């Protein structure tokens, strides 16, 4: 099992969340988090950050006029 320092853990958090650590590294990461409250906090706030990004409100759609113009352009360009 790989032993992580706090600095190494912080550097590896994205790799961990991506599933890119090998099994030994992953066990070592989990073990460190189990025993280290500040790293546990770091991982949980990182997860919360990713969730928050995913929860942003949707971008408003293309305005109806723009959408209509594009459909028109498609119609004219792809006339069989």
């Amino acid at each position, binding site marked *: 099992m790989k032993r992580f320092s706090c600095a190494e853990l912080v550097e590896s958090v994205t790799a961990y969340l*991506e599933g890119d650590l090998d099994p030994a590294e992953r066990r070592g990461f989990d073990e460190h988090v189990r025993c280290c409250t500040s790293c546990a906090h770091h991982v949980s706030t990182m997860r919360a950050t990713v969730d928050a*990004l995913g929860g942003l409100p949707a*971008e408003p*759609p*293309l305005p109806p006029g723009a959408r209509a*113009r*594009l459909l028109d352009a498609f119609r004219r360009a792809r006339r069989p």
Partner: protein
Amino acid sequence: MPDREETIVRLPPDDDVIAALRAGDEATFAALLDAWSRGMLRVARSYVATREIAEEVVQDTWLAVIGAIDAFEGRSSLKTWVFRILVNTAKKRGARERRTVPWSSAFEPGRAQASEEPPPALGAPPVDRSEPLSRAVPEGEVLASEARERIWQALAELPVRQRTVIILRDVEGCTSEEVCEILDISPANQRVLLHRARTAVRGRLEDYFEAVRR
């Protein structure tokens, strides 16, 4: 590529969509417009200063798609191909805007101009505030508007390559493979950019998380 806020419309397989477009099927083109344009607008906003310019970029992209669909070779998915055109169009437009618009009129006074390219004015959240805040966030927790403001701010301050990766991955839900195809970067490079971007955004939210910790 899951669409986070729109109704999930199952598009037909790429081959069928491409055949339909080439045959001039308008309903298929409309379906693509409706499925992908919002994500395209968000990504375009990563490169250009205003939502209006982003709309122009997205329209230019679709016009290019209409013209190039016959030549599409299918070496990538249709969606990553469209997003590649989008990114290239947005980059060119962003560069053009920076050459012609004087800094002082385009950006907030006092914001440091130390980075090689200034952040686009991403600070303003999208106009549509009618989305229920609680919908996308689990366990009844509400993504407070303060958190969202900080996220926009943090995104605006990222270098553009980090911003684009984190928007594609974490906001739009693309896979890392899709992002590598769209941006033409290696998996290792993608992960470094994602790591740096997430670290910066997490840092901006740090004291907010502290304040809401029970």
